[in-house]
């Protein structure tokens, strides 16, 4: 489905990715995690064919992205969907028009068909009845949902989502995770999610790729990553688990400046 081989990229003189190898299989949810500066956003841009690599290759749906013509890239773009981090909705268009936009641009379907498709996707993303609102009237979570509705309007083979849960409260974030799982199960989509949120990654991933400072630190299932003895991986996980296993007494003592009794 997607195959990245020895991908090396630069921003100006600075090398960002130092030879990334990655395979994403049909129908799987691959979550790419890493902190800021890990190179995950850069990798996503390369998977989408938005940037040229210094060396190495990216194959998407059987096409080498460095070798495709702009027409082929246009055809490929019909088969992928992207939910951008900020939603990237057009503020001058209604939610419904935003969601329908790829159909208007790429197809000659009847308007009636497009509108039914749009409303179906709003149903799936639990935004039914909101088609006539403007993006400015939506909450942050709803904007993300609308971005997903637009990303899947053409029933893409591959769906990319950039930080779907960033900036959302835990409940809204969890409901977006569920949406991602539903889309995969019902439509058999291959889904690539880029995130820095470990909880979200562990909920949805079939496999996780951990990027660290431009290198792939780890690729494997959620269970494998939990069992990993790699120190950097463990540091990453422990940061999270330490937060979860909060001892209220100890925390209170810390806050009040009381010395630990042990």
């Amino acid at each position, binding site marked *: 489905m997607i195959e990245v081989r020895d991908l090396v990229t630069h921003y100006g003189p600075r090398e960002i990715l130092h030879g990334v190898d990655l395979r994403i299989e049909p129908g799987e949810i691959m979550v790419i995690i890493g902190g800021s500066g890990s190179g995950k956003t850069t990798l996503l841009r390369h998977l989408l064919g938005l940037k040229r690599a210094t060396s190495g290759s990216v194959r998407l749906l059987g096409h080498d992205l460095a070798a495709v013509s702009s027409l082929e890239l246009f055809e490929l773009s*019909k088969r992928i969907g992207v939910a951008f981090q900020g939603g990237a909705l057009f503020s001058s268009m209604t939610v419904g028009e935003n969601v329908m936009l790829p159909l208007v641009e790429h197809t000659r379907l009847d308007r009636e068909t497009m509108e039914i498709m749009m409303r*179906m996707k709003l*149903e799936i993303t639990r935004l039914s009845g909101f088609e006539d609102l403007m993006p400015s009237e939506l909450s942050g979570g709803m904007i993300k949902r609308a971005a997903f509705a637009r990303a899947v309007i053409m029933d893409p083979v591959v769906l990319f989502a950039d930080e779907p849960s960033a900036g959302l409260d835990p409940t809204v974030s969890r409901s977006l995770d569920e949406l991602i799982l539903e889309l995969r199960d019902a*439509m058999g989509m291959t889904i690539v999610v880029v995130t820095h949120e470990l909880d979200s990654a562990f909920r949805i991933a079939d496999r996780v790729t951990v990027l660290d400072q431009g290198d792939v630190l780890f690729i494997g299932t959620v269970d494998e990553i939990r069992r990993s003895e790699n120190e950097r991986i463990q540091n990453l996980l422990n940061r999270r688990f330490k937060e979860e296993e909060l001892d209220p007494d100890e925390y209170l003592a810390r806050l009040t400046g009381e010395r630990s009794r042990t």
Partner: protein
Amino acid sequence: MEHETQERGDALVVILAGEVDLEHSPTAREVLLAAVSHKRKVLVDLAGVEYIDSSGVASLVEAYKIAKNQGQGFALVAVNPAALRVLRLARLDRVFSIFDKLEEAL
């Protein structure tokens, strides 16, 4: 995509086969809208459909709505598991009448 419309008693049976995707769903839509325009019961046989995307489903929804408004029967027959998942995602399995076999729907 292939299509054929047959008369079976009072009903018109629209048989769709192959891939009802973005490219072919406009044809499916024409065939379906033509069938419901006859004001008879319409059964859509999806047994031979390998793939149906949401543009295909949207055409089914549109035809169903017209049939319903005109008081005609309209049902889907032999919906394969993949197509059923697409319908279920949008909860359309609760909207359409769906039969396993044509004989049951006639």
